């Protein structure tokens, strides 16, 4: 019995070391993940067809609608009020009792379906991808489908999960050990090269630990040293995804525990920018430190997520202008996850980090497209906020995401009163427009 266990363990380590770690160091791939993904696509397509066929027979089970569940009135306040007035009495263009109906209508429409709150929860899929967690409206369809689901559970939890956990542990410990070793070396180009190698290997191993298939587009636009890389934020895994293809200087708060260990060891081999919690509150300190980092043109590009929070990858929310005030060249990056294989969004109010990582490791896979956009710089006439919007639109367009102006902070906080005052101002100008 013991002999078998030892042999098994040896085989396991052999597989991991030679088939995963070494290729990871050199950025090669054995193509296993590719085959796996192809197989998955076929199975999921078959499942979709089965579900659709059953749907047509069973009535009363509504399909999830991608564009919202109601038809919005559309048009500006001016048009809406005018349309109501056009049929009603003309009180000389001033207030009319029908005006309030416009606000009631838009209010009720937003209660039934609004564009913002849905961004903070996972995207609803058009068809089930055989994971219980995305099963919102799909009832029991057929025996064969349930069987597949059962097999899927076994495969994911029994085979893939231990495999992935091993890889993650190896990857992270390699990061800590490797960076500490590299940190002992004196400053030199060799040190930098080694540091990059260590970082890249660690992230590649982690990526394989998630069965991540990453497609990079437009690699010629990759962020250069001394620049700032901005991307849309869906999950902490974004960092792993981006760091698979280049080295970045991370920006963030100093944490305790495991994160703190990782942060400190990473800093040993190359400069990252970690802030104490107290420093984060002072915007000037933050901006100055980042500016100093960028100005020294030899340092790695900074990675920033201007949305400030995780959103569900169907839209891009308001970019905080702070990152755009630093100066330097901005390298926008668009990241889009394929939701068929696993829901990458981290709903931080629902799941903590550990359960999130567990969910990630028991998904089918993570398939993601990364587009590097051409670098942008702030023009003379625009201020930081306008520049931020310009970059945001470029990223939204490339990634096929909806471009929203709402603040990602609305996930937790209330909307500012100034927005309501805007609406009131707009309405006042309508009813005083034709005042004698």
């Amino acid at each position, binding site marked *: 019995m013991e002999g078998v266990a030892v042999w098994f363990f040896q085989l396991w380590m052999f597989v991991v070391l030679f088939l995963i770690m070494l290729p990871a160091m050199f950025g090669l791939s054995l193509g296993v993940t590719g085959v796996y993904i192809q197989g998955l696509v076929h199975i999921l397509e078959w499942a979709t067809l089965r579900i659709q066929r059953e749907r047509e027979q069973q009535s009363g089970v509504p399909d999830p609608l991608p564009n919202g569940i109601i038809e919005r009135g559309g048009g500006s306040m001016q048009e809406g009020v005018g349309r109501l007035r056009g049929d009603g009495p003309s009180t000389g263009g*001033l207030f009319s009792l029908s005006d309030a109906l416009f606000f009631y209508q838009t209010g009720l429409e937003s209660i039934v379906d609004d564009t913002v709150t849905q961004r903070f929860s996972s995207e609803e899929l058009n068809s089930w991808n055989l994971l219980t967690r995305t099963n919102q409206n799909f009832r029991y369809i057929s025996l064969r489908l349930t069987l597949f689901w059962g097999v899927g559970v076994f495969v994911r939890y029994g085979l893939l999960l231990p495999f992935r956990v091993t890889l993650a542990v190896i990857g992270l410990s390699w990061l800590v050990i490797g960076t500490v070793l590299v940190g002992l070396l004196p400053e030199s180009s060799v040190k930098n090269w080694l540091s990059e190698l260590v970082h890249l290997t660690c992230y590649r191993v982690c990526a394989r630990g998630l069965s991540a298939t990453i497609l990079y587009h437009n690699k010629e636009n990759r962020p250069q040293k001394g620049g700032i890389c901005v991307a849309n934020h869906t999950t902490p895994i974004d960092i792993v995804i981006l760091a698979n293809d280049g080295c970045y200087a991370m920006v963030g708060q100093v944490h305790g525990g495991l994160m703190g260990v990782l942060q400190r060891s990473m800093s040993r081999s190359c400069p990252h920018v970690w802030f104490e919690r107290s420093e984060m509150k002072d915007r000037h300190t933050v901006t100055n430190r980042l500016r100093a980092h960028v100005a020294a043109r030899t340092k790695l590009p900074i990675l920033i997520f201007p949305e400030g929070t995780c959103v569900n990858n169907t839209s891009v929310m308001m970019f905080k202008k702070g990152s755009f005030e630093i100066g330097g060249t901005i390298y926008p990056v668009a990241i889009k996850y394929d939701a068929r294989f696993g829901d990458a969004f981290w709903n931080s109010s629902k799941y903590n980090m550990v359960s999130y990582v567990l969910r990630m490791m028991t998904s089918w896979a993570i398939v993601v497209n990364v587009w590097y956009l051409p670098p942008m710089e702030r023009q003379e006439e625009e201020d930081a906020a306008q520049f931020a919007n310009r970059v945001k639109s470029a990223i939204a367009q490339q990634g096929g995401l909806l471009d929203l102006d709402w603040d990602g902070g609305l996930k937790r906080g209330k909307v500012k009163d100034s927005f309501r005052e805007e609406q009131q101002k707009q309405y006042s100008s309508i009813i005083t427009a034709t005042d004698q």
Partner: protein
Amino acid sequence: MGSRASTLLREEEIEEIKKETGFSHSQITRLYSRFTSLDKGENGTLSREDFQRIPELAINPLGDRIINAFFPEGEDQVNFRGFMRTLAHFRPIEDNEKSKNAAVSEPLNSRTNKLLFAFQLYDLDRDDKISRDELLQVLRMMVGVNISDEQLGSIADRTIQEADTNGDNSISFNEFIKVLEKVDVEQKMSIRFLH
């Protein structure tokens, strides 16, 4: 996780809501999904804060009045039935309903009931009259600080003058209906569902 949306709403409940409000089976299921996603406390009812979490509603000048319409007198929580009952006022009027027999009590989304809903949003103290003060209050909500008291007062006076036919210096429900008789309430106070 799992299919929360369909398992927690029983078939009998769906039938009852269908009869009371006229929504279809799929519309009720979708609205239930929406209700549960708004219900952050997961206790089966919505509070005023749950509504105010919707940014587009929070910036609506009459948002508070609309939220109030969902809560019956003196209560702070609304369950799914109450939610649907209020939403039913905004259901579009289908053609085949117009010819239904008059014996059936008036559906919640008839023209008169839609207008009554709008009337009650003006009539804050529910005394079946819109007084000058009530009109001023709603006007003030809509314009914020951008119009002076005197100007607002004269707007209110003019509106009441034009609507008031029995000289009691306030607008009754019938006078309200008369003022809005040309407005296509069926169209403008309806939420069209995509199937």
